[in-house]
């Protein structure tokens, strides 16, 4: 069995892919040198591990969890306390190993909490995980000694004298290197896990628990094991985030963090191993880039998420995979004009909506910079909010965009269905 796993993980094509990913990850800070980009990349690395660990539950075992931040947060807090305990006596080597401590903390949390949550699958699991998440989040405010209350727990990742092969982890670039190393190891480990008998059984338990039980597997035990392992990797991500920011607040284990990881995993695509990686990268970029541009970023994100749920429930990864299938069948060219045709009205619609939302925010969202402003800048244009003209234009753009999208979208869908049936027809 072991040889089978290592064969699947280290097949030549896959080995190339792993290498290429690692090379790109290492090369990125050479291209993007600014501090902003570097912290963005660090955040991405942490989130990739977190989202992948989440998908071990949602994608592989079919467990929809609303409290995954608990394991992430426990990993972060324990790593931070461990960092403070080793203090001056430690060195860079011990610091580099701290995410492992976080992972063990997440694993332990999984052992304790998972025993309760994994008794059931499906909707009940979702609700229990939500309840447990709330329970832990409420406890976090109750025990300020451990969780640091409102201010959180902070530490300093540069400890002791000397260095590890020249690294002290002080500069952000070195931290990025550490994150990439851990993220890479964790990703390979999680991929290897999907190839093990346990990973396969998790899929069986997801797809048909009754049958899995008939074959003689205890579904509850499979869920429990997967949750524990997923807790481990979430804890590793938590340890990384503790080292990265050098501060951990109760925010890391509350419902908001659980929600974000669910959103990014789903947007990326839960049916594919690489889906959460795409989701984590995309959502982190959106969060930081769009979040820096507009106050309304959460609204856009919510709309985007609903759009994905309704239009592409398989996430971005499934869209990519579909196009690859078309490409391999030589049908991709047939769809390109339709994609281009539908992209234009969608752009118009988006522009209209963005205009409306931005103007509403400037006018209504009371506090802060644009409090009750009568003029605002939208997409580089100066808008007079107290005159009807910009509103009428934005409304008209939205309406035209919507009508065109419906019209052309319908034709695109027809073409898409025709292409799909050709594709499946070719196969059978």
């Amino acid at each position: 069995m072991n040889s089978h796993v290592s064969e699947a993980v280290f097949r030549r094509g896959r080995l190339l892919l792993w290498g290429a990913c690692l090379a790109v990850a290492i090369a990125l800070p050479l291209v993007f040198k600014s501090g902003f980009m570097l912290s963005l990349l660090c955040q991405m690395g942490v989130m990739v591990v977190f989202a992948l660990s989440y998908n071990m539950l949602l994608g592989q075992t079919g467990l929809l969890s609303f409290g995954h931040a608990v394991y992430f947060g426990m990993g972060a807090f324990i790593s931070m306390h461990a960092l403070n305990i080793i203090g001056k006596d430690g060195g860079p080597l011990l610091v580099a190993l701290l995410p492992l401590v976080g992972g063990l903390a997440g694993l332990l949390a999984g052992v304790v909490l998972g025993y309760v949550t994994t008794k059931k699958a499906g909707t009940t699991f979702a609700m229990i995980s939500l309840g447990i998440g709330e329970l832990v989040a409420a406890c976090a405010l109750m025990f300020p000694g451990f969780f640091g209350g409102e201010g959180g727990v902070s530490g300093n990742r540069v400890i002791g004298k000397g260095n590890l092969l020249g690294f002290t982890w002080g500069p952000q670039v070195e931290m990025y290197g550490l994150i990439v190393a851990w993220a890479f190891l964790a990703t390979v480990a999680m991929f290897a896990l999907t190839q093990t008998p346990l990973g396969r059984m998790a899929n069986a338990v997801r797809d048909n628990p009754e049958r899995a039980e008939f074959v003689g597997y205890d579904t509850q035990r499979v869920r429990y094991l997967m949750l524990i392992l997923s807790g481990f990797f979430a804890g590793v991500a938590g340890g990384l985030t503790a080292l990265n920011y050098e501060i951990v607040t109760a925010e890391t284990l509350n419902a908001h963090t659980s929600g974000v990881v669910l959103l990014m995993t789903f947007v990326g695509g839960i049916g594919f191993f690489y889906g959460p990686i795409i989701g984590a990268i995309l959502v982190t970029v959106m969060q930081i880039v769009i979040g820096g541009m507009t106050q309304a970023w959460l609204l856009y994100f919510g709309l985007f998420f609903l759009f994905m749920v309704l239009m592409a429930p398989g996430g971005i990864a499934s869209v990519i995979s579909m196009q690859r299938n078309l490409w391999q069948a030589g049908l991709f060219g047939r769809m390109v004009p339709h994609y281009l045709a539908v992209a234009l009205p969608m752009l118009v619609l988006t522009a209209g909506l963005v205009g409306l939302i931005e103007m509403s925010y400037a006018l209504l969202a009371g506090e802060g910079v644009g409090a009750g402003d009568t003029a605002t800048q939208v997409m580089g244009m100066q808008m007079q909010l107290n005159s009807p003209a910009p509103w009428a234009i934005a409304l008209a753009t939205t309406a035209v965009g919507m009508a065109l999208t419906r019209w052309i979208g319908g034709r695109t869908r027809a073409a898409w269905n025709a292409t799909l049936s050709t594709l499946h027809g070719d196969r059978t």
Partner: protein
Amino acid sequence: MSLLNGITYGLLLFMLSSGLTLIFSMMGILNFAHASFYMLGAYFAYQISTWIGFWPGLLVAPLLVGAVGAAVERYGLRRAHRFGHVAELLFTFGLAFLVEEIVHLIWGKVAVDYRIPVELDGTLFSLFDTDFPIYKGFMMLVSVGMLIALYALLTRTRIGLIIQAALTKPDMVEALGHNVPRIFMLVFGGGTALAGLAGVIGGNAFVTEPGMAAAVGSIVFVVVVVGGLGSLGGAFVASLLIGCIQTFSVALSISVTDVFALIGVDLPEGSQLARLTITQLAPILPYMLMVAILIFRPRGLMGARES
């Protein structure tokens, strides 16, 4: 007195959880945005009360919320339904997200001044030197009235019988010529309208702010789990139970040490756990109850099915 407060709060919880349970047992959808409709109810009522007063709002706001709910079912959920339960759940999850942002956008991030109407502001009666406000009595009246109406609707009318039938055998009901998707839309609209009504009378008793959905949302889920998924009677008992637990625990001032002393365990002096009072523990008690129920009676208090 705490008992009365607990019952009032419990009845409010039941208004929320009854809608959630109805929707769940009928359509198999766990509506994550349910508490968002509660919040919408409170905000609509606030807006209407600033225009034309509280009393029209009491009627109009739940209807509006119900209409929004029905529209969400018709144009969103029905589409998501094709992709399975997880997609539905995620849809309502995203919706909750969106509603909160829209409320931020329209009414701002701070609490709005949604007040109890003057006619209901005052003391109903006094008991052991504490006053029982008229408004609490009014809340109880509305909740109980709604409860009786719901019960009558479900058991005594034709549409109620069809709903009950569609709960267990949707295909058969459809074969008999009833429009099941439309019944689903009605149930979803009705359930959200109940949540809206709870928001109308709860919003001014507590506080109307963008965080109110998140604050009450997880408690409602606890109620539904403790009561047993899909069981209206269970939801009723669990609502009252949790309402009372929360109110009593806030009123009690004994510490954890005292509780452990009762069962003969001495906690070490000065540890953080020992210094906690029951009041501080109040927010986590419902969750502890839920975990206990799940360990000892996984189907909930009165639940019929296992999952």
